[in-house]
């Protein structure tokens, strides 16, 4: 064996990874060759020094993390209880949607101009969504049969919310199916629909400011990689408190906003909530949060968003801004302009994850 060959095997020799004849050959060579012996000694010293240079982690790390986990587990229990206690977000979102759709019947009007291009765009989108939900197009994304009903229940009222002059005179098959589904949904959630006018709803809005770059990474990878930079929560009417926060999402929101804001369950109320309690609606909306309730399985979200399952909740990351805005438009009953938001997102490199959680409140 030449010196060059031995030199290549020195790391394995020193680390004890050689055996048999190879071990003997290298050992004997090193005993007889001073250059290789020196190289072996140098390697041994290097490895020793590297090992010696290791940092010992401070004991506080494990202690602090354990304490934080204990605290987190406690809060998670509270969150689960809170979730159980409140009417879950999906149900309330449906209620709100249903309520919005019945505005004409209730003699209320939206504050948005009926001729708004955005309004029309949103209405067209909803029509398309109904087609999707009723199986008219793209079989690959049609959800399970038992998921269609709740979805259609959400969509049908949105279609009805289109101003009267734009409402088609004849009802298409998807619309009829959607109406039937509305009835089925009402039967499924008897306490939820129809909502009495005097009943109030609370809304919790909270969000995370993340960079576009991080958001892209998050879409490609998983939620664990989303760096949380800023956390804000709505607390009092018209004001926000900002926190630097890099931890949980939902427990803190529940803690930070113990008293929901009360609004009327109508379009003005919804507009008030979204405008005043969703600063991100000005154009920094990136993803919609839902709790892990089966009623919230939304085929459109499932189709257009990357769904991230997490313990106790699902997070939907949009593939692009438009999808997010469409979803927000849908959640708001089609009453909100979308184009301004899009340009704002383009102007600002950052986006926000906005979390809207509707729940029934008395």
């Amino acid at each position, binding site marked *: 064996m030449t010196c060059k060959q031995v030199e290549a095997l020195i790391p394995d020799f020193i680390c004890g990874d050689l055996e048999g004849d190879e071990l003997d050959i290298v050992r004997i060579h090193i005993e007889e060759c001073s250059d290789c012996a020196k190289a072996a000694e140098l390697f041994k*010293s290097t490895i020793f*020094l*590297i090992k010696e*240079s290791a*940092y010992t982690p401070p004991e506080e*790390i494990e202690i602090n993390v354990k304490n934080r986990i204990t605290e987190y587990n406690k809060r998670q229990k509270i969150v689960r209880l809170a979730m159980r206690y409140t009417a879950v977000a999906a149900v309330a979102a449906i209620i709100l949607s249903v309520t919005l759709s019945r505005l004409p019947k209730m003699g209320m009007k939206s504050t948005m101009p009926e001729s708004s291009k955005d309004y029309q765009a949103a209405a067209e989108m909803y029509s398309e969504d109904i087609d999707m939900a009723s199986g008219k197009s793209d079989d690959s994304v049609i959800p399970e049969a038992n998921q269609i009903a709740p979805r259609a229940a959400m969509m049908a009222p949105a279609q009805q919310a289109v101003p009267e002059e734009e409402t088609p005179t004849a009802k298409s098959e998807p619309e009829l199916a959607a109406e039937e589904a509305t009835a089925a949904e009402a039967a499924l959630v008897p306490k939820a629909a129809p909502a009495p006018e005097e009943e109030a709803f609370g809304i919790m809005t909270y969000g995370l400011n993340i960079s576009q770059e991080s958001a892209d990474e998050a879409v490609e990878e998983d*939620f*664990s990689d989303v760096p949380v930079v800023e956390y804000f929560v709505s607390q009092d009417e018209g004001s926000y408190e900002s926190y630097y926060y890099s931890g949980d999402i939902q427990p803190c929101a529940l803690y930070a906003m113990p008293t929901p804001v009360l609004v009327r369950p109508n379009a003005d109320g919804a507009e008030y909530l979204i405008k005043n309690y969703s600063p991100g609606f000005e154009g920094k909306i990136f993803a919609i949060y839902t709790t892990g309730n089966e009623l919230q399985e939304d085929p459109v979200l499932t189709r257009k968003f990357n769904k991230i399952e997490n313990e106790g909740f699902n997070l939907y990351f949009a593939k692009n801004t438009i999808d997010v805005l469409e979803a927000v438009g849908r959640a708001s009953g089609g009453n909100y302009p979308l184009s301004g938001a899009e340009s704002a997102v383009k102007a600002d490199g950052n986006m926000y994850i906005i979390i809207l959680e509707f729940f029934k409140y008395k």
Partner: protein
Amino acid sequence: MNDENYNENELVNKARKGDGDAFGQLMHRYNSFIYNVVIGLVKNQYDAQDITQESFFKAYRSLGSFRGDSKFSSWLYRIAVNTAKDFIRSASRRRTLPLEPESDDDDLPPMQIKDDSPMSEPQEVLEAEERKNAVRKAISRLSDNHREIIIMRDIEGYSYEEIGEILNLELGTVKSRINRARNAVKEELIKMKII
């Protein structure tokens, strides 16, 4: 599946169900690894402590999304590296011009002199600490790729196969990268007259 993997999967499953003690065992197993990787990236022990804690907590909170397609160590490592890189990115945005020119030594954390050192002479202890610091500096000058592989192999003692799995590299690439990294450290140490 060997015993260690089985135990690890068991611990992960328990931790996923909210068992803090199970997660504590996982944390104990990987604490040194994660801390050394992170300190290599951020070069500051206080930041490294915060980031290591944050990484473990993030991992605990996100266990629901860990599907077990990769090893837990690999997943944890990725969380820690991403957390550290995010920290570096945001720190660089916040950074303002220093009042004084930065010294070459500033980035390295001060040594903690242990009382239980086998050496009795203070001078010897001091020399050993100085040597250790110099080696750390040599390692800190390596590229990220070389530094992480040195930490995994020579400090934490991971096998080539484990390193390949964590870094998603072929075995041959792992070996050649380790050799290049060691040679780079050796050259630095010779230059610094440590060896």
